[in-house]
């Protein structure tokens, strides 16, 4: 078996197991109340972390590049209460234009 297949199979199996953790152990049941309060904050914490890392993250360093302009465009679109599709398109276009301009 080539390494690509080994890696693909191992990563696939691990991902299936990780995603199944909650639903297989607690499926269809309410979480304990103390856990609910914590779990409710998982979305804001992880979403903020994803935004931060995907905008500023580089190879073991923080980078300021065209993605930041895209984020600024998204913030502006959100402030104008634009629909989500417009927010996402504005970010992509602003980033693409900044890159085309050579930054």
């Amino acid at each position, binding site marked *: 078996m080539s390494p690509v297949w080994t*890696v693909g199979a191992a990563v696939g199996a691990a991902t299936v197991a990780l995603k199944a953790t909650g639903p297989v152990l607690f499926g269809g049941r309410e979480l304990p109340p103390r856990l609910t309060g914590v779990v409710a904050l998982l979305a*804001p914490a992880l979403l903020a972390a994803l935004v931060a890392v995907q905008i500023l993250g580089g190879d073991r360093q923080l980078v300021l590049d065209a993605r930041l302009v895209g984020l600024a465009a998204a913030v502006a679109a*959100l402030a104008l209460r634009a629909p989500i599709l417009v927010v996402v398109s504005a970010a992509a276009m602003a980033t693409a234009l900044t890159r085309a301009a050579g930054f």
Partner: protein
Amino acid sequence: MGALAPVVMSATAFAGSAQFAAASVLATGGGALGAIGAAVLLNARYAPISLTVAPVLGGPLLSRLLQSQLIVDESWAVSQVGGGRVDRRLIVGAGLTLYVGWLGGTALGVVGAGVVGNPARFGLDAAFPALFLALLVAQLSSRQALVAAVLGATIALALVPFSSPGVPIIAAAAACLVGLRR
């Protein structure tokens, strides 16, 4: 890396960042163990994420197992209905849509690699963070949520220079522990 392996990995792992991580470790000459380690670390966030989905995924074990595989960042993010709850129909619908697109896209990429060039040219790498930001704003309904968001982003950014990819996001999940304080 051949044509079939990437498609099969998309069908089973269904988690973009982990696949990219594994592929890039392999492409840069890293070993199979390094590639697996990087991908598993990146996907470790699905353990806590799947906990938040558990209450709405009932039914027989097999059906729970299958439905849980539709959890990805994007389907989970768009199905948030506030208070840490998700809508089951939204997460399953979005998950299925993404799955079909992801498999089809992987196959297209295998066939057409080189035609498109670098997707960064179209600014697509800023599209998902923009989506996540829009969904985050909708989540900031309480002071605690705001604290968790700021703390999560801070933890993640602080760890980027010192850890392998994936670790910053998992560590950021710890920010939700501010919910223990009442």
